């Protein structure tokens, strides 16, 4: 081994970070760390081509203002120009499919916050592709594809990841960003509070005759929320929460029958509809880790907290984790601390655990309140929606929260460098 290789390996062991999972959060963590001078190895089970596939991931995400700033700092946002749609208004409606008439409207208008759009809708595949492109340009990042981690150990001085085929990587710490239900996190002894929702999430992209004018529609129906989110052009992303039984039927139905069900829920406001690409379905569940950190190990994003997609906050919470962890680690590195030490990692946990639990439980409560057909609850939420509409300060608070503007913001989410 040459002297340079030996030094690089030594630096990796003492300062570098192992990132397990190269998705949207794992990839952006590697990029932020590189911008702060911290090297990383990103290990992912998927082959490289997966990041560039058009049809791998049909989901779209609402990128909040804070997340957008993070993506700008990383040089990902500019590359996505033309593929993001600003959300100028949010229209919340409550009702029953059969009634067709919707009594209570809650209108969030971005002009009221004076902060610009509520967020930007983009298809996850664009994010995935551009993050991967940036990862491949970064000299401080090593990408390891098509590799499953079989064993993860934390010794007093380092974390070590061992693959099924016997290769190993060492770093000052390992961050698990493998999404919900990570088996690596479970094997490492992290415990979660979890429950399943009796709901399935259906996702599809539709083309429509009339323009959406940048309006996001959220319908609270008894089976769960049904959202129509504006994409670029005359296209929208459907996020449809349904009971498992009808969800299976809807998935199995032909395009015509599927679109008929869609029209029954959203009405004819967008004119004629047609499907773009395939439909996806996901069982919905909730999980929240009791601890985010152990010596030399940390959980991030959905591996720490998988929330209900009701308000499209999952990815934004993940980006907030990324910004907070990167800030904690770069500050620690600049003062010469051991970045994998428990007292350093606990600073990240302290900053994120409360925020994530509050958001996760809030989404859960909202889903439970609205996914119910009880007459009393319908009256309560009808009253609630009208009341929020009339109370301007409360409404602004909701809007700020949805835009990710509340709480102790990491510098990157305020648009400042590390």
């Amino acid at each position, binding site marked *: 081994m040459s002297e340079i290789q030996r030094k690089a390996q030594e630096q990796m062991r003492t300062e570098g970070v192992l990132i397990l999972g190269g998705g949207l959060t794992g990839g952006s963590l590697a990029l932020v760390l590189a911008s702060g001078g911290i090297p990383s190895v990103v290990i992912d089970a998927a082959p490289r081509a997966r990041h560039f596939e058009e049809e791998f991931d049909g989901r779209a995400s609402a990128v909040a203002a804070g997340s957008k700033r993070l993506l700008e700092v990383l040089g990902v946002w500019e590359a996505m120009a033309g593929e993001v749609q600003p959300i100028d208004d949010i229209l919340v409606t409550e009702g029953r499919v059969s009634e067709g008439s919707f009594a209570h409207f809650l209108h969030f208008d971005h002009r009221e916050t004076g902060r610009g759009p509520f967020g930007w809708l983009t298809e996850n595949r664009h994010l995935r592709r551009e993050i991967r492109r940036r990862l491949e340009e970064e000299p401080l990042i090593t990408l390891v594809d098509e590799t499953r981690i079989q064993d993860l150990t934390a010794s007093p001085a380092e974390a070590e990841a061992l693959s099924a085929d016997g290769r190993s990587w060492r770093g000052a710490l390992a961050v698990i960003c493998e999404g919900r239900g990570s088996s690596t996190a479970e094997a490492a002894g992290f415990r979660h509070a979890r429950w399943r929702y009796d709901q399935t999430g259906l996702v599809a992209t539709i083309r429509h005759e009339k323009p959406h004018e940048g309006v996001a529609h959220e319908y609270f129906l008894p089976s769960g929320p049904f959202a129509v989110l504006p994409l670029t052009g005359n296209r929208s992303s459907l996020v449809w929460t349904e009971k498992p039984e009808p969800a299976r039927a809807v998935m199995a139905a032909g395009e015509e029958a599927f679109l008929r069900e869609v029209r029954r829920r959203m009405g004819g406001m967008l004119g004629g509809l047609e499907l773009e690409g395939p439909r996806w379905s996901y069982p919905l569940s909730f999980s929240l880790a009791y601890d985010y950190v152990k010596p030399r190990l940390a959980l991030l994003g959905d591996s720490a907290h998988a929330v209900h997609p009701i308000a499209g906050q999952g990815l934004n919470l993940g980006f907030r984790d990324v910004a907070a962890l990167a800030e904690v680690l770069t500050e620690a*590195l600049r*003062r010469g*601390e051991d970045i994998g030490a428990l007292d350093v990692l606990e600073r990240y946990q302290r900053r994120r655990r409360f925020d994530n639990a509050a958001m996760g439980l809030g989404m859960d409560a909202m889903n439970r309140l609205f996914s119910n057909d009880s007459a009393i609850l319908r009256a309560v939420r009808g009253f609630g929606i009208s009341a929020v509409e009339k109370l301007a300060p409360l409404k602004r608070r909701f809007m700020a929260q949805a835009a990710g503007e509340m709480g102790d913001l990491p510098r990157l989410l305020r648009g400042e460098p590390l």
Partner: protein
Amino acid sequence: MTALRHPQDASSADPQEIEKFSRMAESWWDPTGPFRPLHKMNPVRLDYVRDQICGQFDRDPQAPRALEGLRILDVGCGGGLLSEPLARMGAQVVGVDAAERNIPVARLHAERMGLEIDYRAGTVEALAEAGELFDAVVCLEVVEHVAHLADFVKSCAEVVRPGGILVASTLARTPQSFAMAIVGAEYLLRWLPRGTHDWRKFVNPVELDAAFIVAGLETADVSGFVYSPFRDSWRRDPRDLSCNYAAAAVKPAAALLIEDAPGALAP
């Protein structure tokens, strides 16, 4: 003890001794153990030390390895809680401690972390006699434990090279520090074993300043460290010197001394 000079050489060492020191090393480095208050305070202390040294040597404190190449002495190094971060910031560190049994503990931990640090059992007086010189000398939470403050500071100043800097931190002798460091930390919260501190030996800022002057140093900065129970962390406060505080003093460069001397500028 000889065998322990090279703790990595297991064959020549007594396994029982290694085991004993390993257990102690865990304790020095356990953020929830008896040294918990030092761990909690370490970030604010490290930022202060780094910022003062960078200020003196015109370096960017936010740059990675901000102390690259500087020779730094850590007086009263203990298990190496300060020496290791200084080494990670790029400094060549010598750690000295009069409590001999700390040295193998510190060595073992540094070895495990892959850091090169020159740990020595002994006193700063011995280093001064040997004529050693350092760009910076750091003694944190030490001056309240020494027998004679002025002599100790003088010895520290002797090993600072002209144009170099001395950074010290300690506790002021005030009712607040009695309430916090003795009643709070030792009796109520039990963060520290009782008797860790003798309040009468705490050092007020004016006393430290006087010791600097006698030792030929110029005080560059004094700042307080304030604990916030709500955030369970410490922050720097330049105005509140009532409990924990730190001070930095520089040794004038030789050229300056000549210029300052009476008649030095006369033709």
